[in-house]
């Protein structure tokens, strides 16, 4: 009896998720993002594509780290060809740097709008176009209604959208599936080696629909994400004794 109840509850949960827009991908379509443990935070243990992701960045340093992180995800999204669109109002992104994250910069179309209010309009137009792999939108404000509009556009086209928000004074509720922050942290080389190591970030998932929030440290190494495992002090001492 107890087991039967559990089955019904599981089935209901699955249905709820389907109604909320989550569709489990057929096995062949699953893409490997290499995010490791982070993917477990999402429903079905899959990084959701075809939804809206929101990134919060308070400082230009964070924006740079977020840009790198998004580029790393885009590498997988662009594997099947296509282009992505980057909409921004004041753009500082330097295209050649993205090559390091596996994205060929000539496959990104940058739309630098003159008026701030055109950012969301252009984003919505781009999200409606199913021939596009991903849309990145750099904006300051995003109200619930605006995010809902973008989400509705996505539900038709199944394009993945990334919203990069720079205004944190208004941390309003949005219709985005996940809310992230990506912060750079001190890189580490082997002890005793001088210089700056691989890009290392602390990735926080502040909100996930039907998933668990969490915090992870990642490194971008050899063209892929690598989870950072802190080696304990004792081990270190043993090795370099």
């Amino acid at each position, binding site marked *: 009896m107890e087991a039967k109840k559990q089955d019904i509850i599981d089935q209901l949960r699955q249905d709820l998720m389907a109604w909320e827009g989550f569709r489990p991908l057929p096995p062949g379509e699953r893409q490997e993002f290499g995010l490791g443990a982070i993917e477990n935070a999402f429903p079905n243990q899959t990084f959701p594509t075809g939804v809206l992701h929101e990134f919060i960045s308070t*400082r*230009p*340093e964070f*924006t*740079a*780290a*977020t*840009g*790198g*992180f998004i*580029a790393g995800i885009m590498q997988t999204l662009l594997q*099947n*060809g*296509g*282009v992505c*669109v980057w909409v921004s109002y004041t753009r*500082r*992104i*330097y*295209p*050649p*740097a*993205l*090559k*390091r994250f596996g994205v*060929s*910069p*000539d*496959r*990104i*179309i*940058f*739309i*630098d*709008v*003159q*008026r701030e209010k*055109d950012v969301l*309009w*252009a984003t919505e*137009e*781009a999200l409606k*176009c*199913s*021939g*596009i792999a991903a849309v990145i939108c750099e904006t300051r404000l995003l109200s619930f209604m605006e995010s809902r509009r973008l989400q509705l556009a996505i539900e038709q086209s199944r394009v993945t959208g990334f919203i990069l928000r720079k205004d944190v004074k208004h941390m309003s509720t949005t219709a985005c599936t996940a809310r992230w922050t990506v*912060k*750079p*942290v*001190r*890189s580490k080389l082997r002890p005793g080696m*001088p*210089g*700056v*190591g691989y*890009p*290392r*970030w602390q990735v926080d998932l502040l909100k996930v629909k039907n998933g668990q929030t969490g915090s992870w440290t990642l490194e*971008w190494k050899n063209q892929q994400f690598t989870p950072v495992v802190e080696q304990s002090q004792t081990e270190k001492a043993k090795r370099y004794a």
Partner: protein
Amino acid sequence: MLKRFVSIWFKYLLTDREAIRQDSLRELPVAFTEPDHGRMLVMAMNTHAEHCGVKLSMAAADARVIAPGIQLFENKPGRQVKLLKGLAEWCLRYTPLVMVDPPDGLLLDVTGCTHLKGGEMEFLKDIVSRLRALGYTIRPGMADTLGCAWAVARCADTGLIVPPGGQRNALMLLPPGSLRLGTEILIKLNQLGFYQVGSFIHLPKSVLKRRFGSNMVLRLYQALGQEAEFLLPLREPVPYTERIALLEPVKTRDAIENAVHTLIDQLCKRLYGEGLGLRSAVLTYCRIDGKSYQLTIGTNHPSQRTDHIFKLLALQFDQVAPGLGIELFILDAPKTEPASDKQSLLWNGKPAADSEQVAELLDNIGARVGNTNIHRYLPQEHHWPERAVANSADLAQSPESEWSEDILRPVQLLDPPEPIEAMALTPDYAPRQFVYRNQRHIIVNADGPERISHEWWTEDGGYRDYYVAEDEEGMRYWLFGTPNDLPGQTRRWFIHGYFP
């Protein structure tokens, strides 16, 4: 091919125009004067002035005596041509080939156009009645040649439509002045007793040429259709053009959208049949007050899709001011390109439809934010960071060289670099700390220097020593110092970007 031409003679062009502007002048004698050798001579007048006995080239003072109450206006040079150009634009509703014929006429190539109004007679009637409604008194003439139409319009009393091939008969009874000849030749013909074209039309060509010059023979034979004469159209006709003339002028948005949609549909069908796609389009709409305006669009790839072109035009519908109503829409496609069904050249790997979708998306966005704000970057073989990319407007262009993977570049680049206060322990080392926007950063790790110099063959300037620096918090920056190896130079520091 048999051609048909219409000549329109505006007998009272200037005075009619003045009467349209001031209605009170309609019942008064009106004349236009022009300075000539220090005197003011009459150069145009209306019927009332003619009845009073005012003649061309009469002194203005005399005209005042003959016709008391005459309204005299001074003519400005070039005024007639300007008026005629406006009228020629108006006449584009009848045919795309209209030529201004100064000082007082228009010439229209109406080959294949007359049936649209239900025949040649109805065509001329329509022209006359519409221009009369505007306030112009005109005389039209229609014939196989420009010269004959001109002659009939100005000099014939009846038979304004010369049947095909009937030029010789039509010209017989007309005075020699109908042949567009110079004054000296006309005087000579008059002195010799040639009062009608018929009295010298049968003379041999060589005789006419010897006595009156080759120009007179040319004009005569042009009128007869034995010498070619070409019409110089006011506007070059666009090969792909569609038009809708509306019986009732429209001014609601729905009606305008409907008309434009039909127009685009017709054009797209035609383009599709010829395997072409539209790259730019001009929509002209003529209002019933005679003014016309244009909307222009461009596309990123040859398009035959009605919905797409309509969407681009619809973005500009807010600017349309229908006034009292719009009676004519013309859609031109000045630029077309062969459209292949497969658009797979854009980016490899994606199905054809998607590339088309992308191009259409960019058309939409470009129409609103401006095409100059859409960028796509291609690598350039330069080390100087600001020069390492070039903007490419062509979506199909692929990079000529590879993007370099081995050099480290910041994801966020400051343009221009911003000065910082930095402190380095030894001259060629990375700074130990720097202050940027009143915030102190202690540098714990640094890579560098990477020396990048200006390319001496493009411009002068020193080099930059770039360092990748990581501060205590883990933030990574791209800093550079200016040259310091010459005496008297002190190194200045700048921040140029943020690493992820």
